[in-house]
């Protein structure tokens, strides 16, 4: 067994590995050069038959050659595997821009989420959410709120009346609530003061549906009853609300008005959150959101009329309170540029989807 012979076997093996272009070829080369019938394996087997003095030398040479071969094989193996892995990753590449609208997205109605958004401003302050029936006793909807039976304001709310025992003749004393304010009365009767609640809900008036009216709409009402509450507290609470919803530089403005259930009463406006009032008297920069008025009318508010406190079992000497309410549709319209009220009531998925889960 000549040393040159062994070196040749080794070199042939190394050359075969290097020549193997892929893992399959390498496998073949591996069998050919490291397998049981490979020249080096056969040479190894022959060592036993050598005279003792040659054994050690030949064993060492063959061993070294096999070591080098195995090392080269492993290196080539790793090299080819890495190449293959890289190729597979390239081959597995996809077009990630493909759409996956297998199940189109759902959405909650923006009126629902708008009510939640407003309610949450107050819930985080410690207010609780109160609810009441939509078909309501006139006493709760009107009388308890200081709308006497012949009060002109009572006629101003275009009320749906519910049939009573005598059908459409005679009065049932039951109406579709015209505002969320009856929940105020219920809350005062149900709870011991202090009372801090918000009442979002659906209300009804006999308006035909058009771009700016709907007979079924939504309001949110706030009521606070405690010792020593003042109109300044009302103002601060309103300021806090518009700041929470529209930004920390927002504020409100109160204008005297009349509501039977509050005294003093006020109309509340918020600073236009778009132009911040800068469009007023500035024809170069007109504001569509507020019609360049600088203020956006929100709703009504005031100090709870002590007569309402009496009717609802609250001591007007010890307690005072404030309340306000406004329409959710209107807020949705100016906050989200909704131009037509009908879009909110028709349930068209193209309208609702973009609003997602929260607003």
């Amino acid at each position: 067994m000549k040393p040159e012979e062994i070196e040749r076997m080794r070199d042939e093996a190394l050359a075969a590995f290097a020549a193997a272009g892929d893992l399959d070829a390498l496998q073949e080369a591996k069998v050919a050069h490291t397998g049981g019938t490979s020249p080096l394996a056969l040479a190894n087997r022959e060592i036993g038959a050598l005279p003792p003095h040659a054994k050690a030398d030949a064993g060492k040479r063959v061993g070294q050659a096999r070591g080098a071969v195995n090392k080269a094989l492993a290196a080539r193996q790793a090299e080819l595997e890495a190449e293959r892995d890289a190729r597979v990753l390239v081959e597995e590449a996809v077009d990630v821009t493909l759409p996956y609208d297998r199940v189109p997205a759902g959405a909650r109605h923006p009126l629902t989420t708008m009510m939640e958004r407003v309610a949450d401003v107050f819930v985080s302050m410690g207010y609780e959410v109160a609810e009441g029936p939509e078909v309501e006793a006139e006493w709760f909807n009107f009388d308890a709120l200081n709308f006497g039976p012949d009060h002109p304001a009572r006629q101003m709310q275009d009320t749906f009346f519910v049939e009573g025992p005598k059908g459409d003749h005679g009065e049932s004393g039951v109406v579709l609530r015209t505002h969320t304010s009856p929940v105020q009365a219920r809350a005062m009767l149900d709870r011991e003061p202090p009372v801090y609640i918000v009442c979002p809900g659906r209300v009804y008036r006999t308006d035909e549906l058009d771009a700016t009216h709907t007979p079924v709409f939504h309001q949110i009402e706030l009521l606070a009853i405690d010792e020593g509450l003042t109109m300044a507290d009302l103002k601060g609470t309103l300021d806090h609300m518009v700041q929470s919803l529209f930004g920390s530089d927002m504020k409100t403005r109160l204008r005297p008005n009349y509501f039977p259930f509050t005294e003093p009463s006020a109309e509340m406006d918020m600073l236009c959150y778009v132009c911040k009032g800068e469009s007023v008297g500035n024809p170069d920069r007109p504001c569509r959101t507020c019609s360049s008025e600088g203020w956006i009318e929100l709703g009504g508010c005031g100090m709870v009329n002590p007569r309402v406190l009496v009717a609802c079992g609250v001591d007007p000497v010890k307690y005072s309170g404030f309340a306000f309410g406004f329409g959710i549709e209107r807020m949705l319209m100016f906050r989200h540029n909704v131009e037509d009220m009908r879009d909110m009531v028709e349930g068209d998925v193209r309208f609702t989807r973009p609003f997602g889960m929260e607003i």
Partner: protein
Amino acid sequence: MRVPLSWLREYVDLPATETGRDVQAKLISAGLEVETVEQLGADLKGPLVVGQVLTIEELEGFKKPIRFCTVDVGTANGTGEPQEIVCGARNFAVGDKVVVVLPGAVLPGNFAIAARKTYGKTSHGMICSGDELGMGDDGSGGIIVLPPEVEVGTDAIELLQLVDEVLDIAVTPDRGYCLSLRGIAREAAIAYGLPLRDPALLDVPAPNAFGYPVQVGDPAGCDRFTARTVTGLDPEARSPIWLRRRLQKAGMRPISLAVDITNYVMLELGQPLHAYDRSRVQGAIGVRRAEQGEKLTTLDGVKRTLDAEDLVITDDRGPIGLAGVMGGANTEIDDTEGTTTEVVVEAAHFDAISIARTARRHKLASEASKRFERGVDPQAASAAAQRTVDLLVLLAGGTADAGVTEVIAPSAPHTITIPANHPDKVAGVDYGRETVVRRLQQVGCDVYGQDELIVTVPSWRPDLTDPNDLAEEVIRLEGYENLPSTLPKPPAGLGLTGRQRLHRRIGRALAGAGYVEALNYPFIGEHVFDQFGLAADDPKRKVVKLVNPLSDEEPALRTTLLPGLLGALRRNDGRGSHDLALFETGLVFHPQRELRVAGRLPVDRRPTDEEIASLTAALPFQPRHAAVVLAGAREQAGWWGKGRPADWADAVEAARILAREAGTELLVRSGQYGPWHPGRCAELAVLVDGTEKVIGYAGELHPGVLKTLGLAPRTCAMELDLDALEEASAGLPKGPKISTFPVATQDVALVVSREIPHADVEAALREGAGELLESIRLFDVYESEQLGEDKKSLAYALRFRATDRTLTVDEASAARDAAVALAAERTGAVLRGA
């Protein structure tokens, strides 16, 4: 209330530079809702002059009659020659004084006037109508014919007071006194800190016994009645220009001198007046309640049947007027024949509630009733009568009769006692006693006392009844805009209730599953129940009905959410969206078994619990429901492969989503109900206190129903009672114990009769497997000829695990065998391949 600024200035010396917008801002901050400021004549440019018609030549041969006129306009045209004008109107004659607009002028609406050829002539200007000048309706229906005494060449812009600003004020129901110039002037005077020239401060002769006889039979309904007589009226006298113009600017139409004067005084002082033709009144004027069924024809020509509560004015024959609302036709001033020469002027004060009821009962809201309902100053009645008399004398050449009738039911002025710091406490501002007293005096109150103020409210403010009313006066005059902003500190609240959180969770879960929320109107027509195929005695047919629905087609309130949701589905489909999944949560309304009237509880104390319960008993049940509808594809086809149509299983799964969110175990079983496909309808039930309660249905809708409703085939729906679902909630979930020992999985395929529900098989397997069973899942259902007719194969994966050890194969197999055995016993299931 429309308030011409020029008229307002008569009572308050507003600074000359003050514009309508300035006054608007001041009045708004004082609490008057000034909606608009109308700029009359803002774009009007002369020359606009008085002319006298010299000649009229009728032009022939045109489609309508046309006149070629020459008009003397003095020197206004620069030449002094007659002005040649073509005119289409016919209500004037040679010699009449008219309003002529000359070339170079611009009329409202940016209408520039120039000499132009028309009808074969050249017209150098126009003879004007009221409309063309933006004057409003003058009742003439043609061009303006001026009184003969105006001079030719006079500037008509000034003569007709064409340039003015008019504030349009929406008066709130509490501020009746602001339905008058006097009231608005009072507010303007306070706002500007200027003195008011009160037009009601007139010298009025004392009442005497020889005035027109009046008998008030109902002093509670009429606490004041002044009657004055004016004789010798010139029936030819017309309202002067200034009077007509003020009425027009205030939004009223000039009618005849006597009527115009009463309207004018009403606008000025807020006191509704009535003028009777004395020759048509027989005997004493009376005030009483009508007799039930009594008849009266009012000025608007309507014959009315009176109610016993109606307050009427009478003479010997019976009713001659609906008190405070509208006069009767039988004593009307004659403004066409012009024969009225003697009038009786009525200035009375009527009970606000009585007038409100009568106006409502007869659906007759008049300028008078509007004012009486909101409160008229009773002390102004005699001044208003005097003012009317004065104007009749001045403008109609009449003579005031010396007789003055006044019937007055005595009443004490209203006083309110408040602590001097009450407005401070309401506002949260330290105004101080001095400010409070000064502000109250400004609104007309008499104020006495130091720490306790005794406040006598003025006669024109019947709305001031309570301490807070006085507080509001002080706070508004001090300026709402000056209120500080403070935050109260509520006690820590409990946050949202479980029910409220569930509603939000359900919305999110359904939206997360691809459903879009729709909020539908609750109005339905009962025909929908027939379309739904509901049984005649189905409780859903019992509806709450509206007395005054918007549409007679939909007079009832929903007992199910489906009509609204399916309507939205159809609307979307019609608009080109066909793959739809919609949901809604909302109230449905079920009438009480026995309808009751909700009584009118007292408001001067807390109602008792029984009284509140009586209201509750009159209200319908209003549970909250949740529903979904599906149509078209639930999963769309795409590059990933085929789509999948929405089917009954999606509808049932929607119910399961709700049950999961509610933490309630939902029982799903085969059912049949109303609009659902009888073979593809799941009945949904829950356990409430150990009793099963059906809370809804889910599945595919009946093909016949879909056809009737015009909906796509295979449309699916689910509806359930959310309140009942919540009621059955298990409450807080308990943390499960997690075993870390290995799982032993066993699959079984069972052959059962086709009609055996999976739920029964699974329940038997579950029970039979015992406590080692961790979970069970149906992973295949199939039918084949090999299995045999009416058979199906259900394949389940059972996972077993113990909490304390690794299960042996034998243990798992024994549990599986026990499961299969019980399924076999209960459902006749046979293990496949066994």
